[in-house]
């Protein structure tokens, strides 16, 4: 019985600690931009672009490069890296065309100094083109690469 009371007490204490931690973090959260909910989800590519970048006028460019495997043996973990030599990068977006939720991840740059590179590990349901978009100086540039996903993992 005493043990039960003790357990109850410790659970209550830990929830309090979590609440306090969240409270301390909130000032930085106020500064942060909102999560672009209208870009994520099962939306077609053009709609996601409109929601994330505010435009869907896209130019293909050599100044955006995507470093990714040609063939991914495990679709659950596909490392991708977007690099750009463009100046004044405002945001970067990654779209996996054939995923149930095509818009996968994005980076919003505040002020200068960041945005030349963005890398993440993404999930892919099947072989699909991966489109990377970089918005710089008000224009959107893109590059694309098809990544093959082999479910069996035999590298075939």
């Amino acid at each position, binding site marked *: 019985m005493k043990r039960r009371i003790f357990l109850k007490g410790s659970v209550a204490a830990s929830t309090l600690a979590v609440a306090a931690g969240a409270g301390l973090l909130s000032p*930085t959260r106020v*500064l*942060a931009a909102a999560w672009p909910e209208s870009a*994520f989800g099962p939306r077609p590519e053009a709609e996601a672009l409109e929601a994330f970048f505010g435009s869907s006028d896209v130019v293909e460019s050599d100044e955006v490069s995507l470093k990714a495997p040609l063939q991914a043996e495990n679709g659950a973990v596909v490392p991708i890296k977007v690099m750009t030599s463009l100046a004044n990068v405002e945001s970067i977006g990654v779209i996996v065309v054939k995923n149930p939720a095509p818009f996968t*991840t994005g980076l919003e740059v*505040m002020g200068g*100094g960041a*945005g030349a590179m963005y890398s993440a590990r*993404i999930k892919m349901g099947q072989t699909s083109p991966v489109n990377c978009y970089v918005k710089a100086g008000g224009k959107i540039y893109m590059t694309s690469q098809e990544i093959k996903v082999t479910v069996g993992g035999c590298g075939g």
Partner: protein
Amino acid sequence: MASTKMKIKKSAEGGHDVMVLAKHPMETGLRKDKKTGEKIPAHFIKTMEFALNGTAVAQADLGTGVSTNPLISIHLANSKSGDTVTVSWVDNMGESDSAEKTVS
């Protein structure tokens, strides 16, 4: 419970590369529990904010399409030795974590 690790590497082009590994299940909300057949609710990191010396420089927006235990890296062009880099993330269930490191 949650743990977030950060690595800062000097970049060949100047500045630094910041690499963040956050421990997180990143559930899509589409998977089912094998035993009960019930859907596992979506649980994923929504935003990850990077700050250099207390000023926000970039925010990564993540969705369910990002792998379990996300490994995110970005490049900082204006960082120098002695600067502090802070990263903090928030998920869709209100959980959060942060990490801080000084550029060596």
